[in-house]
């Protein structure tokens, strides 16, 4: 079974995670870290990189071992593998910067619970070659990081008037503190989703307007 | 509760207070309407199966003569309202919409229109089944609106004992005053009818429920009744829909008819005072039901009043007779303004169940604009059944009809219209519920 589902590497393998199946904006996976750590760009970036690292390592390992892991224990194995790499990242960040470690708090360890990673392991890595998997995971990771940055930049910009800690609007800017607070996280993510929905609707309208009769179509 | 109802009068919870608007008609004695040149007798004027015609084209009929027989127990016979000639049995317009079969009779001009047909009986000697059969033979159906055959209502299924006959003299609909006049002018007939009905039911007591805006009717009835006797008068509050049988039972007896059941399940039968008056008049004489009292009122009518109208009179004739010009009115309603239906054609006949004809002017266009529900809660405060019309209306708007039935008790709604009446957003709630019910009924089928 596994053999014939393998996909060749293509640009799409990478791009799919960036946009069409963007884990945050489209699949709505791993929302907790997305909301919790994006009150500044630097945290968002750190979280994105950490997640990407775990994603890459664990899916690569899964892809490597895919033929040796019996079906029955595959989820359990994946979880153990993921947890291992999360622990590794946790210690690495701790060693690199105490500040970021404190800022991200428990959410580094909670990467374990990010369904995106398990989902990739299960849906992609277990059926594809290591190289393809790596490309796909990289796409997903980058997509995830970009999404985090989207949130982080808006929240930092409005919530503190800075970007990466550098003041952008000058001294007299009055920060919107709500952006750094929990409701701000929800609102900003909601606003991004609205924006995408709006863009999609516009595109759809143009498409249907151009294509004319579309024949039988279902809801 | 007891103290409260002592202070406020017997009634049910919630409901609304529309203006009475009965001043134009309630003091005018019942007058007779002339016979129209052509009478239309739909074979189905009652709840149940249509009657089967007994006459053929060109046949001459006498006033009061049976022209159609009941098709089984769940049906009622028809009697010729005039002496004349049968023009045919044709598809004719009715108030409901679809055309149905009707016997059309051309009135014989100049003929004396006395009742020429009767089958008098000694009521004392009849047992209960015979009594019921006699009632069926006179073609009596409920005069309160639903036109449910009276003999069916009075023959209670085995296993149920009726302790109380409730007689409905509330007449809570604005404009209408036919029952009011009947109680004043035909007090004896009403009481006679009640006694017959009690006998048919085996009931030991009867309560006549009358709204407190008709003190003269209450006085007239009480004057004829023995204080200790089995029949009493219950004064209930003027409130719409006090006249609905379920609400009246609640007000008078503090009992509730369980959802999906009928009053007889809790030992009660409800009849309209008009029905009782007809019973008391017709049954001893053995005559058929050929005419009824109809209130004709509304801003479009120059001679409003209560008329004794031969069944089958076309609306066009009736309106013309009461001086309707059509200049400032366009809603022609059979029944009262709260529950009645507008008709699309003046060709429809007055049938056995029509208690009033109300003609109203066109409302301003802006008053009809539908706005979103603002959840003011007035409908919830108004619904006598205790439903949530606001949610029901929203569900209907997104066509979730099953949910309405399963979770929101749609089928308990009896379309009294209180909710629509109070809604400031002009949401056509009752109409929504009718659509929902009709679609749900078909789905089950």
């Amino acid at each position, binding site marked *: 079974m596994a053999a014939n589902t393998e996909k060749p590497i293509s640009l799409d393998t990478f791009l799919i995670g960036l946009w069409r199946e963007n884990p945050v904006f489209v699949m709505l996976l791993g929302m907790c870290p997305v909301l919790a750590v994006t009150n500044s760009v630097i945290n968002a970036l750190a979280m994105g990189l950490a997640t990407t690292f775990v994603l890459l390592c664990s899916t690569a390992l899964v892809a490597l071992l895919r033929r040796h892991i019996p079906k029955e224990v595959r989820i359990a194995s994946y979880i153990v593998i993921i947890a291992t790499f999360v622990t590794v990242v946790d210690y690495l960040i701790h060693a690199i910067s105490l500040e970021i470690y404190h800022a991200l708090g428990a959410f580094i360890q909670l990467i374990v619970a990010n369904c995106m990673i398990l989902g990739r392991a299960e849906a992609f890595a277990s059926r594809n070659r290591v190289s393809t998997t790596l490309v796909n995971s990289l796409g997903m990771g980058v997509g995830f990081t970009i999404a985090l940055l989207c949130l982080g930049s808006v929240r930092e910009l409005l919530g503190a008037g800075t970007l990466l800690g550098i003041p952008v609007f000058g001294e007299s800017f009055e920060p919107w503190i709500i952006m750094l607070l929990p409701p701000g996280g929800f609102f900003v993510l909601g606003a991004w989703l609205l924006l995408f929905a709006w863009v999609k609707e516009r595109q759809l309208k143009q498409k249907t307007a151009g294509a004319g009769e579309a024949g*039988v179509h279902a809801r | 509760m007891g103290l409260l109802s002592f202070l406020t009068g017997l009634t049910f919870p919630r409901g609304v207070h529309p203006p009475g608007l009965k001043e134009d008609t309630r003091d005018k004695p019942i007058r007779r309407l002339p016979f129209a040149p052509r009478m239309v007798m739909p074979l189905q004027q009652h709840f149940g199966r249509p009657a089967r015609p007994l006459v053929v084209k060109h046949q001459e009929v006498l006033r009061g003569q049976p022209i159609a027989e009941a098709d089984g127990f769940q049906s009622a016979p028809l009697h010729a309202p005039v002496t004349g000639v049968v023009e045919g049995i044709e*598809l004719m317009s009715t108030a409901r*919409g679809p055309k149905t079969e009707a016997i059309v009779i051309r009135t014989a001009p100049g003929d004396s229109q006395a009742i020429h047909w009767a089958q008098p009986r000694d009521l004392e000697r009849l047992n209960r089944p015979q009594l019921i059969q006699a009632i069926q033979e006179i073609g009596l159906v409920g005069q309160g609106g639903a036109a449910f055959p009276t003999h069916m209502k009075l023959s209670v299924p085995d296993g149920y004992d009726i302790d109380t006959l409730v007689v409905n003299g509330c007449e809570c609909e604005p404009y209408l005053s036919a029952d009011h006049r009947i109680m004043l002018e035909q007090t004896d007939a009403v009481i006679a009818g009640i006694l017959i009905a009690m006998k048919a039911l085996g009931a030991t007591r009867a309560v006549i429920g009358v709204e407190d805006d008709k003190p003269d009717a209450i006085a007239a009835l009480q004057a004829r009744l023995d204080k200790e006797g089995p029949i009493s008068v219950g004064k209930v509050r003027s409130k719409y829909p006090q006249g609905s049988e379920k609400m009246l039972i609640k007000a008078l007896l503090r009992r509730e008819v369980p959802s999906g059941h009928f009053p007889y399940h809790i030992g009660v039968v409800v009849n309209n005072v008009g029905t009782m008056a007809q019973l008391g008049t017709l049954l001893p004489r053995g005559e058929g039901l050929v005419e009824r009292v109809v209130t004709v009122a509304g801003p479009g009518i120059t001679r409003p009043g209560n008329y004794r109208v031969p069944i089958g009179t076309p609306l066009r004739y009736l309106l013309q007779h009461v001086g309707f010009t059509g200049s400032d009115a366009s809603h022609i309603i059979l029944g009262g303004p709260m529950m009645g239906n507008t008709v699309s054609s003046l060709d429809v006949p007055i049938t056995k169940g029509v208690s009033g004809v109300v003609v109203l002017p066109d409302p301003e266009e802006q008053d009809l604009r539908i706005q979103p529900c603002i959840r003011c809660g007035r409908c919830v405060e108004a619904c006598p059944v205790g439903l949530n019309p606001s949610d029901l209306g929203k569900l209907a708007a997104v066509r979730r009809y099953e949910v309405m039935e399963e979770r929101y008790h749609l089928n308990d709604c009896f379309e009294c219209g209180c909710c629509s009446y109070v809604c400031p957003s002009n949401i056509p709630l009752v109409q929504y519920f009718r*659509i929902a019910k009709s679609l749900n009924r078909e789905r089950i089928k």
Partner: protein
Amino acid sequence: MAGLGILLAGILAIANRRLYVFEDPRIDQLEDLLPRANCGACGVAGCRPFAEALLEGRLEPARCTVNSTDMNQQIADMLGVALGSHERQVARLACAGGSHVAATRARYQGLKSCRAAALVSGGGKGCTWGCLGLGDCEVVCDFDAIRLDRHGLPVVDPVRCTGCGDCVDVCPKDLFSLQPESHRLWVACLNQDPQDEAMAHCQVVCTACGRCAADAPEGLIRMESNLAVIDYAKNALASPVAIQRCPTGAIVWLEGQAPLKGSGARKVTRKEPLPRMEPLPRV
């Protein structure tokens, strides 16, 4: 350390073992090939049940009328069964009385819904049998197969129509029926009024004059309650001959874009609605 690992592994292995449930993966694959319209036209409650029914061999792939034939063929190939055949059914409307040919007697004010209007004394159209033109069928059709034309008469797009029957259920005047596509001879009227009255309400009414019955092969058309009725059991005999002398064009031949009317049919040139009939209170 490894001991701990093995211990956990053991627990997990057992646990996983217990959790294992088999579900045929082909159900998902089939569902992917289906349109997921969940319309029910195939006779089961939705696309997934249909997929299950396909797998069990209870239904043929062609029963899905929404899917393209290509896709159904793919399904058939995947399952290794024959595509099956199923004569396409489309919805047909038995009324031609748009606002330019059929009169209105009373104006209906209220929800824009045929259901609602029909409950108010029939809706106010002169012809009590005819289409009210408020478009419940248009709304209920999930496939955009029904559009009201500018006279308020529903027009079915036979390509889009999947024969789901929703319009049949919703129409309060029971004007829709599902007909095999091969039924080309069609009486677009249900009015049972006698000729004069019918003509007064609508210009395209079937007056039961009997000419179509006379011109058609014996027994194909008969007159019943002031209407022409086609016996589709004899559909093979049907041809456009029957429509030629119809004076109102109530009987049509359905082929190509617009329904074909006979040459004897009165031409309707009016575009705007008929004025409202205004019955005077005179007798």
